[in-house]
């Protein structure tokens, strides 16, 4: 089995050309950029934090994002985490789909996001904050948290604009637990970013400004149907940077800082993504 997996990975690496993706340096917010049709992006997202009065943890999520069509991107996530003085656990999976309902570019571009989650409560990936998510959730020992599996439906309305090199993205999040009779929970994420140069240089270079993009994100919970609002939940904000390594992967880093007592003081996020272009074209008869 290991041999087959190794062979598949090797075949993937040989057949496909890795390039930097057309994407913004966000970790939580989504823009309206979808995966190009036929491309597969493999991404690792890491999170490291030390909640006050809790144990430090590191979480890792691996994502496989595929451009099914020019207006539909589908993605599978697998998550796990390690907590100091505790244990290492696998958390579960997510299956996400994003659709562009309008087929042309507008000043504000909507994207509809539908995700099914099957995760235990030990999940620390913090890919979104909803409802009354707070620092106290991150102090629950793994043994207790992993025994509760939540199956949830997550819907997002993504609004995004590209203006003079800048991207401005607003996400409105709602989440429903499908296994427990809990109310709908809500959250938000906003992001703004820009490449450091808008024009490509005439020569290949490594540390060119055009390969770097920077911005900021703010995200947090909005309570639930019974108690909507900014209180009794957590909020974070921080800068974010990404570097497209020429002919290689994209790497990103973002420190997020807690904005109230329900939040962790600082969350450090990093990511590495690799896009394989036209992953299945080698199997098509028509391909040259």
């Amino acid at each position: 089995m290991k041999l087959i997996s190794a062979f598949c990975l090797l075949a993937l690496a040989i057949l496909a050309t890795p390039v930097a993706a057309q994407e913004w340096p966000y970790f939580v917010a989504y823009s309206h950029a979808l995966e190009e049709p036929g491309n597969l992006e493999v991404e690792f997202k890491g999170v490291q934090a030390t909640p006050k009065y809790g144990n430090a943890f590191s979480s890792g999520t691996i994502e496989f994002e595929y451009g099914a069509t020019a207006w539909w991107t589908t993605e599978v996530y697998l998550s796990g985490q390690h907590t100091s003085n505790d244990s290492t656990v696998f958390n579960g999976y997510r299956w996400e789909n994003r659709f562009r309902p309008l087929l042309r570019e507008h000043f504000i571009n909507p994207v509809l996001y539908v995700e099914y989650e099957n995760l235990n409560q030990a999940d620390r990936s913090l890919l979104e904050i909803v409802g009354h998510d707070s620092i106290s959730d991150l102090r629950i020992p793994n043994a207790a948290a992993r025994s509760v599996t939540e199956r949830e439906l997550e819907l997002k309305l993504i609004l995004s604009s590209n203006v003079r090199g800048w991207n401005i993205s607003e996400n409105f999040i709602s989440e429903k637990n499908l296994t427990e009779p809990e109310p709908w929970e809500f959250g938000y994420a906003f992001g703004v970013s820009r490449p450091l140069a808008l024009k490509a240089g005439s020569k290949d270079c490594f540390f060119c400004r055009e390969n770097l993009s920077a911005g900021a994100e703010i995200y947090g919970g909005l309570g639930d149907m019974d108690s909507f609002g900014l209180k009794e939940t957590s909020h974070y904000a921080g800068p974010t940077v990404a570097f497209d390594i020429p002919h290689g992967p994209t790497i990103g880093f973002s420190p997020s800082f807690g904005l109230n007592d329900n939040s962790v003081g600082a969350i450090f996020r990093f990511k590495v993504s690799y896009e394989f272009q036209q992953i299945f074209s080698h199997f098509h008869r028509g391909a040259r």
Partner: protein
Amino acid sequence: MKRATFSTWILLAASVCTAADTGWMKHVSEADRGRKNPYAGQADAIAGGSRLFVEHCSKCHGEDALGRGKRPSLRTKEVQEASDGELFSLLKNGYLKKGMPSWSALPEESRWQLIAYVKSLGEHGTTDAASPAPVGRQ
């Protein structure tokens, strides 16, 4: 004989469908159609566009821009004679129905560079003097 006729019809239909689908041109606004490429003919911009082409376009349209499989050539008469503004509109909006994604995440300046490069390639079959090899593959 019947099989041969059927195959011919299929091939004919496929070639009509894939040959220079210019349906996207109908959606170009007059304002976009009239836009001029600020980098047209500039060597530096063409070289930058060539790098962008290798990174973002060549896997679908081929390194020579002559198309790959069902992905169309960019060196047809229709594309080469399209106005700068029409190509800019195509890059901005994509043609999502037919699989061409929107490249609006690329800054406007970069999109104009790409157009300058594609235009520099010329129509396939005509003189190739202005057909620089993509920078990344030289």
